[in-house]
């Protein structure tokens, strides 16, 4: 029984810049079901962080929503007021940001920060502290009571990342968004965090939108994958389908080039020849055309994201062979 929790529908987002509008997201569509772990994968700069900040509308001032809808439990978030959005943040939707070293307030103790984010709960401060300590224990921080009195700079990067995860889980959200939560960690810690996230997902039953540019991590953790390239979804589907039967040349190149395993320390996706197109000055046609070794005449038109089989979508003319013929 699957119920759609989050539905991104034809979302287009621009950044207004001095060079003109930077089309950071174009016609993004995908769903996240309740209790499901969905991975978003793509090279640096493909718009992953833009996408997740758009969901909670924690956006840079020069961000412009051009088109589309973000539906959470059927309710379009883009039509909500700022006050209504605030009610959602850290409540039904929590987020773990990309950079653990700067994610906590440097002059306030971790304990106070963890108490403050429980502002919606009507319990005493001592109880909130107890909850905070318990959550730190859950993510594997030893001696949590004493640690609550410390400041962020007294923790290592990996610990701060785990604290961020603990904070995000504290409200038992329906949706946890994690933006590259393991990129800053070393390989062993990365495995630990992935395992921990799996456990937590099982215990708390929340859906997770997990962002990474590390395929191995995605394969390990996720049920479904959304592959992004230069601000667009090029392919989406179950982990099995995407990894064993990729239908977009970009996905294929990603998998071919990936050293494969979570244990190997591949931080950056292997290079694919050519450059990512300038988002402020988009080329005509398929976004991947310039770097694609299977490009053909038809690629001068933008291929639509098409359903190929149940739960597998790709945006490539190669999958429309019968039409070409």
């Amino acid at each position, binding site marked *: 029984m699957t119920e759609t929790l989050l539905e991104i529908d034809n979302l287009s987002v621009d950044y207004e810049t001095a060079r003109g509008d930077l089309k950071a997201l174009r016609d993004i569509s995908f769903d996240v079901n309740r209790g499901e772990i969905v991975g978003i994968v793509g090279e640096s700069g493909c718009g992953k962080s833009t996408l997740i*900040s758009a969901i*909670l509308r*924690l956006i840079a001032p020069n961000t412009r929503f051009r088109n589309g809808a973000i539906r959470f439990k059927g309710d379009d978030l883009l039509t909500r007021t700022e006050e209504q959005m*605030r*009610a*959602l*943040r*850290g*409540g039904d939707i*929590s*987020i773990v*940001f990309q*950079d653990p070293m*700067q*994610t*906590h*307030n*440097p*002059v*306030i103790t971790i304990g106070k920060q963890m108490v*403050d*984010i429980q*502002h*919606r709960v009507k319990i005493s401060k001592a109880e909130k502290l107890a909850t905070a300590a318990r959550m730190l224990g859950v993510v594997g921080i030893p001696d949590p009571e004493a640690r609550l009195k410390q*400041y962020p*700079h*007294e923790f290592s990067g990996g610990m701060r990342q785990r604290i*961020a995860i603990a*904070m995000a889980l504290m409200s038992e959200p329906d949706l946890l968004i994690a933006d590259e939560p393991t990129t800053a960690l070393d390989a062993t810690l990365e495995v630990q965090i992935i395992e921990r996230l799996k456990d937590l997902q099982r215990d708390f039953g929340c859906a997770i939108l997990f962002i990474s540019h590390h395929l191995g991590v995605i394969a390990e953790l996720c049920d479904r994958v959304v592959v992004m390239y230069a601000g667009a979804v090029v392919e989406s589907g179950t982990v099995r389908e995407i990894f064993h039967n990729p239908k977009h040349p970009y996905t294929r190149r990603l998998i071919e080039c990936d050293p494969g395993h979570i244990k190997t320390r591949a931080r950056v996706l292997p290079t694919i020849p050519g450059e990512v197109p300038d988002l402020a000055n988009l080329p005509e046609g398929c976004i991947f055309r310039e770097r694609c070794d299977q490009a053909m005449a038809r690629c001068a038109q933008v291929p639509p994201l098409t359903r190929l089989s149940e739960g597998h979508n790709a945006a490539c003319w190669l999958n429309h062979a019968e039409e070409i013929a």
Partner: protein
Amino acid sequence: MIQFAFKRFALAALILVVAVTVMFLMIRAVPGDPVSIMLGPRATPELKARLIAEMGLDQSLPKQLFIYFSGLLRGDLGVDVFSGRDVTTIVFEQLPHTLKLIFSAILWSALLGIGLGCYAAAHPNTWIDRAAAAISVSFIAAPAFVVALLSLLVFAVYLQWFPAIGVGEGFWDTAWHLVLPSLAIGLSWVGYIARLVRASMLEVLGENHIRTARAFGLSERRIVGIYALRIAILPVVTVIGVGMGFLLSSAVFTEIVFARPGLGKLVIDSITSRNYPIVMGAVLVSTALFVISTAVADLINAILDPRARSGT
């Protein structure tokens, strides 16, 4: 923390010793024989000789300095040769008036300036922000003695809302007498602090941890007023600490305009009558005030900022 405080105050003491020595030498370097000026043209040579001996001016300079410092250690700033009273007593009689003036000025200007700066930073580029900027800049441009004279003329002489001179007695009367002088000193600080807070607040609001606070649905008031302000305030504390020197010098003008007793007035009066022991004492105390306030500012910052405290 205690170690930090100890180090900081040791440094302050050292600075003070150097400052006092320099001041001592500077005063001695002023042309004119102090004794003749103090006693007037008709003084007898015997009287002069007695005064010179009393003030220790017949000793060598290092000896004089040594005597001064050893007195200082006992809290003895010397004796006023005119009245025969302790300089320490005289200076500490005047000190509270100046302290009240300075601290009332800091207090209201910091509160207003911080509020204005926070508001402007929370609503950047709105008309309120622009109005605050215009007001701030015009406040900064207003020197204390001009504001003192103008406010004296308008509010004390013409409108007669506030008293023109003196310090008053009792709490309310004292407060009433403080309004205009404190306004004169604090006004440019409001603008200055507001600009400073706005700039540092805007920077902090752009930091990632603020986005985290927002992502947990904390109220904008808590984010600006606590999460960001705790960081944005740090440069302001330093500036106020160092600004103590400027405050003291504007206090001199203001005390004269409003005929308020205080350190400033004491210094000016004693300089005109070449009353060196008092000049020395008053300048020493204000220098100490300045040195201590910068040290205190550093301590406050160390308390506010755990990163500075741990020395990383």
